[in-house]
């Protein structure tokens, strides 16, 4: 579980995150949603320690990530997997080598053991053997995301972070990626945090949803509650998508 307490972050004096307090549960897909520029990426990067925060606490289990030493923090990072918006696969390495990289760097496993783990991770994200030796530039965007997920889970992390995992993907592939992340979360009992503005993801896998507006927590709940909320800001965000506006209309008619 990850807990964020009274987190503040500003850039050059202008506040971006204001008094964020929330918790992300283990074994659930926790979604952070909000408009572009609302502060969700800053929140994600602040939790990850990529940005130094102004004030507040970030607890990974029973450890305050902000207060632990640099060495401890480095150690803890090995329990964290991250899927970046663009995949962030290493261009100079093949698909297989990308997934093996964290194993090479942080484990003392034999080549055979490492290969077994690489095969396991890539098979879990449905990447076939023919793609193993290809460069990231030779595979599709959807495959790149899946390889990024495989790399993120290679070290068996306790925490998985995904920044806009569906951006740039067609709706069908996006659904596959969402389902994959949810399945892996359940299977490995990870604490997964997904940063998204894709409403399909929210409805499909949003077991816990945090809505950020203007750098503040504007709503918290689940995908089952989200369509019935009377929070105006959240409604404006959700029903900007015509499909969901239509769904809501039909739901009201049926009532």
């Amino acid at each position, binding site marked *: 579980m990850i807990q964020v307490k009274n987190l503040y972050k500003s850039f050059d004096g202008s506040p971006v995150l204001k008094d964020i307090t929330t918790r992300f549960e283990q074994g659930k897909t926790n979604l952070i949603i909000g408009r572009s520029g609302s502060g969700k990426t800053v929140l994600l990067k602040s939790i990850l320690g*990529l940005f130094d925060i102004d004030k507040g606490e970030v607890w990974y289990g029973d450890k305050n990530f902000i207060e632990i030493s640099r060495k401890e923090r480095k*150690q803890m*990072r*090995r329990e964290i997997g*991250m899927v970046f918006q663009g995949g*962030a696969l290493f*261009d100079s390495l093949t698909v297989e080598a990308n997934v093996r990289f964290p194993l*090479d*760097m942080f484990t003392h496993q034999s080549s055979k053991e490492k290969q077994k783990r690489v095969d396991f991770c890539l098979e879990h994200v449905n990447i076939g053997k023919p793609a193993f030796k290809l460069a990231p530039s030779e595979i599709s965007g959807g495959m790149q995301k899946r390889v990024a997920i495989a790399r993120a889970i290679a070290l068996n992390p306790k925490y998985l972070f995904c920044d806009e995992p569906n951006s740039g993907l067609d709706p069908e592939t996006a659904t596959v990626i969402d389902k994959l992340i949810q399945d892996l979360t359940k299977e490995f009992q990870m604490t997964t945090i997904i940063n998204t503005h894709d409403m399909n993801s929210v409805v499909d896998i949003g077991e816990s949803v945090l809505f950020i507006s203007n750098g503040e927590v504007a709503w918290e709940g689940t995908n089952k509650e989200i369509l019935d909320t009377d929070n105006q800001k959240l409604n404006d965000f959700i029903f900007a998508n015509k499909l969901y506006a239509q769904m809501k209309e039909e739901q009201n008619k049926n009532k």
Partner: protein
Amino acid sequence: MLRRIFGRPEKHKLYVRQLFQEIDTLGVNSVWIVIIISIFIGGIMTIQFAYSMSNPIYPSTLVGLGTRDVLILEFSSTMLALIMAGKIGSNITSEIGTMRVTEQIDSLEIMGVNSAGYLILPKIVAVVFIFPFLFIISVFFGLLGGLVTGPIAGVITIPEYLEGIRWLFYPYYVTFSIIKSLFFGFLVASVPAYFGYYVKGGALEVGKASTTAVVNTNILILFFDLILTRLLLT
């Protein structure tokens, strides 16, 4: 940043593997361009020396001597470093800069890898290691360029040229230039790496950073050339 670059590696084996890759990419792949440039410059210098020393009061051996000393003292160390700053330097800035803007460096950091050390240290060691070899290759092929071009152009005979390149030879000149090439190797790798590592934005900014890195490296090479010449040669 230097502290992070020279910090303790997470796994020595991976750094060594990276080092060999960099020696191949940055060093071995530069050998051909060094050979081609050196042959041409050696030939051109021989003809120019022969032209400016066409007065019979100058001994013909001066042509070989002049070509040799210019190659050893300035061209194969300083000029070559300036050329390599363009080739290797822009390569380093664009590679690291692209990794920065595509979040590959963030990805390394999140894994707990010292990204500055992993990406930059092998490049610095590789370039510092390869530069003295490039210097020696350049001197050899520069002299060979003069040897081939001089007689073909009809400005000097082979025996005269060979006598000239052996005349008044001070081995210290070679030591001096190797010391310079070690310094320049460090500059050619570290300055562009710095500009690439701290780039912000997108492809346009990576391009700008490459240009800035090459310009700054060139200025620093010339500045250190002056300092080292003053300290080691006078």
